[in-house]
C-alpha cells in the first residue's frame, strides 16, 4: 500500500484582496511508499509546503473557499494510507445563479492522528504554556484517559530524546527550551498520537547544524524503530542525502524529478536551473567535467576519488590581511541579561575598515548578544568596547551608535515600519534629521544599490521575502553607517535567494563598506567572507581567515561547525598528498583545476 498518493493535484490559494492568485500547484503527481524516508526539496515558493498541507488534508479542508467555488481552487485527488483525503467532484454543487457546477471537495479531511505535520517555525506551533500540555494536547482531543495520556507523553518525550525533561514537563515554558528542543517537542506531540505518517516541513531552518542533526537523527531513528513513514521538506542537501531513501524536486508547482539521493544530486543539469542547494563537490565537477572524467560526486569521499591531483596550487592564497583603521575593538566583554543569564563571558573582537567578517558559533553562543552590544542596544556589563575609538560605556556614545553601526535584523517583518518602500528607507534618515534633496538622494541611492528602485511606491508587506530582506538592508544602508551588521540573512531561503543577498553584501563591501555577518551557512563563509571570529559559550575561541578556521581541526571539533565540502575535500586529499593546496571554495577549486588544465591541453 502506498503511504501517500497524489494524482494531478492543482491548488490555488484564495486571494483576500484584488485579483486571483496564480495556481500554487499545477498538476502534482507523487507516490510515497509506506516506511519510506522521503525528501522534498525545491526553490522557495515552489509549492513544497502546499503539497504537505494537501497530504495532511489541511488543504482544502482547513481553508474557507470563497463563494464555494471549489473548481476554481482545487482539482485532483489525494489519498493517504489507502483512504481518500481529498477528492474533487467537479460536477457537484450547481451555482444557483449561473447553473454551472462549482464543484465539491470530498474525502476524510484533516488526517489527524494518522498523519502528523511539524511546521517550520517552532515558536508558532507551540500552542500551550508548558511542555507537558503541549504534548498532551492532541491526546486530549482524542479523548484518552488520564493514565494513557500520561504514559504516551512520557513515551513520546523519550522517543525524541527528551525523556530527562519528563519530571519537569509541567513546569517548562516554551521560552525555557532551545530551538532544537522546541522542534523535537513538536515532533513528540505528534508521535504521542501514534501517527503512521509524519511530515516535517523544513523543521531545521531556524536551527544551527547541531540542532539540525538532532532533529534529523530523531526522525530517522523513529522511522527505523516504529516503521513510520517520514516525509521531510528540506533545503540542505547534506541532511536530505544522509537520511532520505528518495528525494522529490518540486519546482513551479510540479514534481519535476523523484530519485534516490545519489542519482538526484548528480543530476546537475536539472538542479542548477532550479536554483536549489546542491553539493559543492557536484558543482565543481559539473563546471569542470573534463577534469573529473564526467562523474558527479556528491560526498567528500567520492570527490577524493574523482578529483585530479594536478592542480594550480597558487590560487590557494588568502587576501592580504586588512591594515585599515580599527573600527571596533572589543576586549573581554561580559554581558548579563535581566533574568541573570550571562550571555557573554569574555568575548573579544576586532574589526578593521574594509573587513568582511563572519561571526560564527552555535545557537546560544552569544553572537547576537555581541552584535547588539556593538549597535548600542545592550549596555556592556564588564570589559571594554571601543567603536571608532570611543568607549561605549557612556550612554551618550551608545545612543548615537546607530549612526555608525547599522544592524539588519534577522526577520524583515520586524523592521518594516511604514507602508511604502520609499518611506521605509527614508524613516531612518528622518530620524537623523536629514530632509529635502539630501534625503531623496540617499533614498534613491540605497534603493538602487539593492535593485528595488522600481518598487519604491509599493507596500513592503506585499514584497517577497527576498525583496523585503533587501529593503531591510537598504534602510540601514541609506543611513550610511561605517559598519553594517547583518544577522542571519539566509535562514529558510533557497540557494538563489541566499546568493543574491550575499552578493549584494559583497558589492557593498567592494564599494568600501565594512561588513559583519552572523550566519550558520559555512559555505557562504568560505565563499565570501575574508575574516572569521568564532564564539563558543559566550567566549571568542578563534579569530582568523576562513581557510585557517576550517583547517583547524581542534576549533572545528570544539565548536561543531560544519566544514564546507570544498575545503574538506582538499583536506582529505592532503592526508595522502601533503603538498596539495588547501582549496577553500568552489571558485578556488575551479581556478585551480583550470590553471593546471590549460597547459596540459596545449
Amino acid at each position, binding site marked *: 500500500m502506498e503511504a501517500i498518493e497524489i494524482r494531478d493535484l492543482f491548488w490555488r490559494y484564495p486571494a483576500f484582496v484584488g485579483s486571483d492568485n496564480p495556481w500554487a500547484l499545477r498538476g502534482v503527481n507523487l507516490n510515497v511508499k509506506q516506511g519510506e524516508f522521503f525528501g522534498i526539496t525545491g526553490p522557495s515558493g515552489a509549492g513544497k509546503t502546499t503539497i504537505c498541507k494537501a497530504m495532511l488534508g*489541511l488543504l482544502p*479542508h*482547513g481553508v474557507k473557499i470563497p463563494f464555494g467555488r471549489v473548481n476554481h481552487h482545487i482539482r485532483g485527488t489525494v489519498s493517504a494510507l489507502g483512504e481518500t483525503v481529498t477528492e474533487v467532484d467537479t460536477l457537484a454543487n450547481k451555482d444557483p445563479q449561473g447553473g454551472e457546477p462549482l464543484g465539491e471537495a470530498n474525502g476524510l*479531511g*484533516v488526517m*489527524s*492522528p494518522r498523519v502528523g505535520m511539524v*511546521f*517550520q517555525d517552532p515558536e*508558532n*506551533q*507551540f*500552542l*500551550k*504554556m*508548558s511542555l507537558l*500540555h503541549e504534548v*498532551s*494536547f492532541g*491526546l*486530549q*482531543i482524542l*479523548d*484518552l484517559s*488520564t493514565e494513557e*495520556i*500520561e504514559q504516551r507523553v512520557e513515551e513520546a518525550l523519550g522517543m525524541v530524546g527528551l525523556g*530527562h525533561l519528563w*519530571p*519537569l514537563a*509541567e*513546569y*517548562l*515554558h516554551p*521560552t*525555557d527550551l532551545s530551538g532544537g528542543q522546541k522542534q523535537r517537542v513538536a515532533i513528540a506531540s505528534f508521535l504521542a*498520537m501514534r501517527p503512521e505518517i509524519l511530515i516535517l516541513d523544513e523543521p531545521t531552518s531556524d536551527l544551527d547544524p547541531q540542532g539540525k542533526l538532532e532533529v534529523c537523527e530523531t526522525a530517522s531513528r523513529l522511522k527505523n524503530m516504529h516503521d513510520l513513514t517520514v516525509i521531510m521538506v528540506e533545503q540542505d542537501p547534506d541532511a536530505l542525502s544522509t537520511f532520505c531513501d528518495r528525494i522529490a524536486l518540486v519546482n513551479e508547482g510540479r514534481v519535476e524529478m523523484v530519485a534516490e539521493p545519489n542519482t538526484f544530486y548528480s543530476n546537475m543539469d536539472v538542479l542548477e536551473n532550479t536554483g536549489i542547494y546542491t553539493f559543492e563537490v557536484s558543482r565543481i565537477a559539473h563546471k569542470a567535467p573534463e577534469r573529473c572524467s564526467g562523474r558527479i560526486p556528491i560526498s567528500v569521499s567520492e570527490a577524493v576519488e574523482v578529483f585530479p591531483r594536478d592542480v594550480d596550487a597558487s590560487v590557494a592564497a588568502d587576501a592580504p590581511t586588512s591594515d585599515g583603521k580599527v573600527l571596533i575593538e572589543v576586549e573581554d566583554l561580559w554581558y548579563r541579561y535581566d533574568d541573570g543569564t550571562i550571555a557573554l563571558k569574555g568575548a573579544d573582537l576586532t574589526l578593521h575598515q574594509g573587513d568582511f567578517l563572519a561571526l560564527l558559533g552555535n545557537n546560544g553562543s552569544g553572537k547576537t548578544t555581541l552584535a*547588539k552590544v556593538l549597535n548600542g*542596544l545592550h549596555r556592556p556589563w564588564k570589559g571594554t568596547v571601543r567603536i571608532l575609538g570611543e568607549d561605549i560605556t557612556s550612554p551618550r556614545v551608545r*545612543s*548615537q551608535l*546607530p*549612526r555608525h553601526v*547599522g*544592524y539588519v*535584523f534577522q*526577520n524583515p*517583518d*520586524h*523592521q*518594516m*515600519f*511604514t*507602508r511604502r518602500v520609499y518611506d521605509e528607507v527614508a*524613516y*531612518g534618515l528622518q*530620524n*537623523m534629521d536629514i530632509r529635502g534633496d539630501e534625503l531623496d538622494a540617499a533614498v534613491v541611492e540605497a534603493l538602487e544599490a539593492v535593485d528595488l528602485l522600481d518598487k519604491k511606491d509599493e507596500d513592503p508587506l506585499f514584497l517577497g521575502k527576498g525583496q523585503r530582506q533587501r529593503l531591510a538592508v537598504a534602510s*540601514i544602508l541609506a*543611513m550610511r553607517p561605517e559598519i553594517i551588521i547583518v544577522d542571519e540573512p539566509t535562514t529558510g531561503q533557497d540557494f538563489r535567494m541566499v546568493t543574491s543577498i550575499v552578493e549584494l553584501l559583497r558589492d557593498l563591501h567592494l564599494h568600501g563598506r565594512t561588513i559583519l555577518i552572523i550566519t550558520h551557512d559555512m559555505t557562504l563563509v568560505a565563499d565570501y567572507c575574508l575574516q572569521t571570529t568564532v564564539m563558543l559559550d559566550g567566549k571568542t575561541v578563534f579569530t582568523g581567515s576562513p581557510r585557517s578556521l576550517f583547517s583547524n581541526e581542534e576549533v572545528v571539533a570544539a565548536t561543531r561547525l560544519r566544514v564546507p565540502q570544498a575545503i574538506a575535500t582538499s583536506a582529505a586529499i592532503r592526508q595522502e598528498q601533503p603538498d596539495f593546496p588547501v582549496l577553500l571554495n568552489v571558485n578556488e577549486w575551479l581556478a585551480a583545476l583550470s590553471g593546471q588544465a590549460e597547459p596540459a591541453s596545449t
Partner: protein
Amino acid sequence: MASSATAASQREGKKYVRTFLFSMKIDSPLARLHVVTKLVGILLMSVVLVRLMDMNNPDPLGTLLFAVLSVAALLLGGVIAWLFRSYLVVIFPMLTTLFVTWLLFNPDPGTRVFLNLPVYDGTLTLGLSLSLTVLIFVPIAYFQLTRNIFYGVIAGIVLAVLLNSLGLNPRLTLAEVSFFHPLSLIVSDKNLVVAATKVFGYATMVFISLILVMTTRDAEVIGALRQAKTPYAVSFFTSIMLRSLSMAVLDYGTIRQAQVARGVSLKRKSIFGKILDLARISVPLIVTMLRRSTEVGDAVMARGMTQLSTKPATFREVRPYRFVDIVLILFFIALTLAVLLFHFNLTQMLGIEIGDILLQ
C-alpha cells in the same frame, strides 16, 4: 516512592517556574493554592482594606498586620527577590509620596496640631511681579542658548525665591479672584495616623495584587475555566490568546530594538514624537502577528482540533479545591463580614487610642 524520589532529585535543577509575572518557587504554598482562592482573597481583602482606611475610623494596626502578612506571603512564594529587583524601587517612593501627601494636605486636622503652615489663602492674584518674570524668562532664555530646559527651570525657581525672600519683588496686582479653599501644611496626630493607615493599606493592595500575578500560571487559569464548566472554546481561546500574548511580547522587544537601530532615539523628541514612534511599532507588530496567526491556526488543526465543538479530555489542568482553599475562602468571607457589618477595627479592639500612640 522510587519514582517520586527521582522526580524530586531531577527537579532540583529547576526550582522556579514561569508565572504571569516573573517566576515563583515550584512547590511554594502559594503555588499550591487554587487560583479562585487567590482571586476571592484579593477581591475581599480590597473591600476590607478600603473600609479599614476610612478617614473617620482608621485602623493603622489592622492595615499594618495585613501589610506584614502580604509580604510574608510573597516571601513564601519565593518571589520577593524579583519584587525587590524590579518593583520596590517604584513602590517605596510611591508610598512615601502618598504618606507625605496625606500628612500635609489632610483638611481634617484632628485634635493635636504639631505644625500649621498656610500656603494658599484661597484667592488667586492676577498680576505681574519681578519674580514671576524671572521664573518664566530664565528657563526660556536658557533653552534658547543650550537646547536644554532642566537647569533653566531650576535657576528660574532659585532666582524667584531669592528675589522674594530679599524683598526685591515689586509687583503689580491687576485682580484678585477667590478660588478653591485655603490650603495649609498641617502635621497633626490624626493626619499621622491616617497617613500611616493609607500607606499600609495601599501597600497591602499592591502586594496582594502582585501575589496573584507573580504566583499564578496561565495553565491554572485555563484549568479554573474548565472547572467552572465554561465551554471548551472559551478556555481554548483564552489559552491561545495568552500564548500569543507571550509571543507578541517577544516580538515587541525585537521590533523596538529594530526601531532603535533605525535611529529612533538619535535625537531628543517631544512627547508627541515619542507617541508617534510608539504608534509606528504597530505596523510590524500587526504584520508579524498576522503571519503567525495563520501558522498557529494550521498547527491547531494539524493536532486534530478541527471543530470548535470538540470536547477534549482534561489532563492535569484542573486542580481540586483543597481543605486549605476552603478554609481560606471562609476566612476571607468572615473577615469581610466582620469589617463591613460589625465595624471590626483591630486598633480599637486592642484599646489603643490614637492620641496615646503619639504622646508616648
